[in-house]
């Protein structure tokens, strides 16, 4: 039986609760967990001031309630499972290195920034800067996998270096901006300026999009690695037409202002 955390008092101002994380709860009794520190704005409070805690502390945590104003859940986690039974606030899974976070609703901005490993699955939408680097950082996500079934906003995978981000719906502007390596797959439409400043890495979209003037069309082909990725996505519950899986893709190389070793692959029926 997992550990259940149920929000009983809605925070008036943002609640910072990085203690909701298997690593920080490891080996703690329910009493200890109740006394974990959270920050309600600038006030130091206890987890029990906001959450009702029950069940077994076995690395499997289920969190329920309106968590839109609850920040940093699962940040730096390295093992276990956190299930969010609804929406979650900013910085969920920041710098996580292992384990899994399942968000049944929507995620806010900064989902899994600077992620090192592990997995995140979002059934709904996510905000800006999924798997990105924080401002000033030149390296974003360095490993792990993020699966979003809905839409995302801007700067998905900003300066990512390794790992996989999959978006079932649409993405905003600057998808894969300043990417160093890694893979981003967007099933729906992407916003403008995809891959701006990318050095290496692959951005794959199953929908046509505008391309920056600094990208050039290299070829039209049917790469095996995309097939493998798409089969993998089918297994992960994404709905992909078999025509696409075997289809052709335009390969655009860029960004010419950088190393020109990145690629944007667009489905070309």
């Amino acid at each position: 039986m997992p550990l259940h955390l149920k929000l009983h008092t809605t925070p008036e101002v943002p609640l910072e609760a990085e203690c909701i994380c298997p690593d920080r709860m490891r080996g703690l009794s329910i009493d200890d967990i109740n006394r974990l520190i959270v920050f309600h704005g600038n006030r130091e409070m206890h987890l029990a001031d906001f959450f009702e805690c029950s069940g077994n502390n076995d690395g499997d945590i289920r969190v329920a309630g309106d968590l839109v104003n609850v920040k940093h859940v699962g940040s730096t986690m390295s093992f276990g499972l956190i299930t969010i039974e609804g929406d979650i606030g900013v910085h969920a899974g920041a710098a996580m290195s292992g384990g899994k976070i399942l968000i049944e609703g929507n995620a806010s901005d900064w989902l899994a920034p600077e992620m090192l490993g592990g997995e995140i699955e979002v059934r709904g939408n996510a905000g800006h800067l999924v798997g990105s680097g924080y401002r000033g950082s030149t390296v974003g996500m360095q490993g792990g996998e993020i699966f979003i079934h809905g839409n995302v906003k801007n700067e998905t995978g900003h300066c990512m270096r390794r790992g996989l981000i999959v978006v079932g719906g649409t993405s905003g502007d600057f998808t894969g901006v300043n990417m160093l390596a890694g893979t981003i797959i967007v099933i729906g439409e992407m916003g403008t300026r995809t891959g701006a400043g990318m050095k290496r890495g692959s951005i794959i979209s199953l929908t046509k999009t505008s391309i920056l003037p600094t990208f050039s069309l290299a070829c039209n082909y049917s790469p095996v690695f995309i097939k493998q990725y798409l089969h993998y996505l089918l297994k992960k519950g994404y709905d992909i037409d078999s025509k696409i899986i075997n289809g052709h893709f335009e390969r655009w190389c860029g960004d010419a202002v950088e190393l020109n070793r990145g690629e944007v692959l667009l489905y070309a029926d």
Partner: protein
Amino acid sequence: MKMILIPGRSAKQGTSLNHGKLKEEYIETTSTLEMNPDDMQKLKLSDGDSVRLKNATGEALVKCIAKKPGDLPSGMAFIPYGPPSSQLMESDTAGSGMPISKHMEIEIEKL
């Protein structure tokens, strides 16, 4: 008609705010929309007519005046920053702190 609204600074807005932002001159300056004359003609507008600006965020009522066609291309309108432009401004800052405050897509109609 759909248009792109560009709020910005103008010298008059700059000088009038010294009197006070609750004073008539500033309110009038920031409620005056500059348009391309062709667009005005399409909407059967003359200088000083009232228009309604609208988008998903909100709406604002302002007066319009014509600009020289070369200065302001058709499809684009200019307004000095102020309370009316705020009404149309979306609050999402996309992780930057900055709302999109210029280049807002709006619907314009004659009152």
